[in-house]
């Protein structure tokens, strides 16, 4: 199967995010970037499918943040082709912009399946996968927790999660875009020696997207850190005293009658 996987860079929340002086966006100047977690799962899912049924994996990413490291790691894990979309802006592309540009880069690859993380924590104007599916004119299924080849030719079987952890097994006709929440196993660890080897052998195909994109449909008027409106109460005393206090609190809140 010919699978395309989208990998996005997101700010690493190991550093507390800061609002920039304009008050309308995060200050990314001091941020470090890492691979979006659910995109890491999308790549793992693609690797599992390739191991199970063969095929090729093409990874696509915008040239932003620490993308080279991410792409060399993907190559070390088993990605066959790497496409880097040139990007000169200080901020990463919004989902609408990214969808249009990724679709332009993905179309010539003629993939049967496009896997992308179901969301990213820095998305503001919606999430990328359905926009990408729309731009490609592919069907979309999101919040996926596992994909398997077949059982019918030209289809995959997916496990979709609904609210309340209700799971459904669906058959999806290809080509399609799937928004991956989690792969069938955690993203694999790849030894650093292989990543270092990939830095010497992996070839990036660079492309400059030219797709016309509408203006951002969402405007930020003000961005500010959440303000504390209350504080936690630390319960102290003996176990019996604490238990009695909890009972009182639950009763006061109407949870316990």
């Amino acid at each position, binding site marked *: 199967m010919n699978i395309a996987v989208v990998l996005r860079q997101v700010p*690493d929340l*190991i*550093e507390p995010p800061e609002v920039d002086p304009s008050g309308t966006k995060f200050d990314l100047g001091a941020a470090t970037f*890492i691979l979006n977690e659910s995109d890491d799962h999308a790549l793992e899912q693609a690797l599992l499918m390739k191991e199970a049924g063969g095929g090729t994996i093409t990874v696509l990413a915008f040239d932003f943040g620490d993308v080279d490291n991410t792409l060399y790691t993907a190559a070390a894990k088993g990605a066959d082709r790497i496409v880097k979309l040139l990007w000169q802006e200080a901020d990463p592309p919004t989902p609408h912009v990214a969808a249009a540009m990724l679709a332009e880069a993905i179309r010539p690859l003629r993939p049967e399946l496009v896997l992308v993380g179901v969301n990213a924590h820095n998305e503001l104007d919606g999430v990328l996968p359905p926009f990408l599916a729309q731009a490609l004119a592919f069907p979309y299924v999101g919040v996926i927790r596992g994909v398997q080849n077949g059982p019918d030719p030209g289809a995959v079987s997916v496990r979709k999660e609904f609210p309340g952890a209700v799971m459904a097994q669906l058959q999806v006709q290809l080509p399609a875009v799937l928004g991956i929440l989690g792969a069938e196993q*955690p993203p*694999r*660890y790849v*030894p*650093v*020696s*292989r*990543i*270092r080897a990939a830095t010497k052998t992996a070839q990036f195909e660079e492309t400059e997207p030219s797709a016309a994109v509408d203006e951002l449909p969402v405007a930020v008027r003000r961005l500010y850190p959440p303000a504390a409106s209350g504080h936690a109460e630390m319960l102290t005393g003996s176990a019996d005293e604490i238990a009695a206090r909890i009972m009182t609190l639950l009763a006061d809140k109407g949870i316990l009658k």
Partner: protein
Amino acid sequence: MISFDGDAGMRLLEELGKANAGQSPAGCMQCGMCAASCPLGSAMEYTPRQLILHTGAGDLDAVLASPTLWMCVACYTCSHRCPRGIELTDLLWPALRDRAMQADHQPPAELQETLQNLFKYGNTLGKSPRQRLDWTKGLDVPVLDLTKDRRPVEVLWLVGCYPSYYPRNQSVARTFARILTRMGVSWGVLGTKEKAVGECDRMFGEEGLFEKLVEENRALLDQQEFDTIVTLDPHAYQALCRYYPRFGAWYPVQHYTTFLANRAAQLQPLIVQPVETTVTYHDNCCLGRRAGQYDQPRALLQLIPGITLTEMARSREDALCCGGGGGGMWLDAHIVAHGGQRLSDERVRQAAATGANTLAVSCPYELARFEDAAKVVGLEGQLRVRDILELLADAMNLQP
């Protein structure tokens, strides 16, 4: 999963023999000393002896797939007692772990996270590099960041990951800063640029990650002018004096116990009050069995009036490991899941059996491990775990 041919195991043992200052594992005479000595041997699918036997006999695939591979906590007992002088801990275990990962076997999940933390952030705890100097908050002595103000110093102090980030160890780091300053030693640190020395990932078998850290640390250290590097972490000491030279990186380095013991005459006049307590000292494996430095920590304790030093039945070269080395800090769940025990739990029982009320340590891992263990086995409040530096600071009447 990559599969190895039948001769691959014997070739590996022979390669290790060529690279080894000790004897080739291929020369193992299967005496079983290692198996009987290993504190986790009874829980292993393959004891150290059997690892060599099966690796050489064409069973490399089975060995690499075994949970045994991730049960060594680098106590060096097998290496120390091997009558053939085979370097099992330093060479055989890391080499097999490396082969396992190259063959797509996944290390235990906790360990993967630690390795990724080292790769991404240069520390084992997954903390921001920008927070590396957080341990200095509230410190009442100046800290020279040599990466911002480069100048010759007597001591380039590699603070280490746990002392930089882990709250219990941060107070020990502040204590060492006060002791060095009180002694009049000129010292500096690498500030937010410091990265893990990388001993633990080498022992995990992550040679590529270790090489990366060596390169990054060399780039920093080679810019500095110092008489000696001092570490709080005996694993970092071990890596700098034994493994860095293999990459052409030679640095004078001392563990803090040796550095201070060598300056006992300078230290002694600064000791102004007794510390009334009965102390037993835990020989950590890197400083003890690996480096033979049993006397320096005890010499420091004996400088302190009021301390009664008592020895555990298993001390010096026979000391039981805390279970934290060789990646053991991140392998407890794996070891227990496969029938092993947390060695730190047994070790605090041994310490309490001496009648001591203080367990003195000289490794950052041990504070966390032994304080947890004391709680687990019901010794909290009865056995206090303290770094030697904390006892010295008490005797010097330095702010805790």
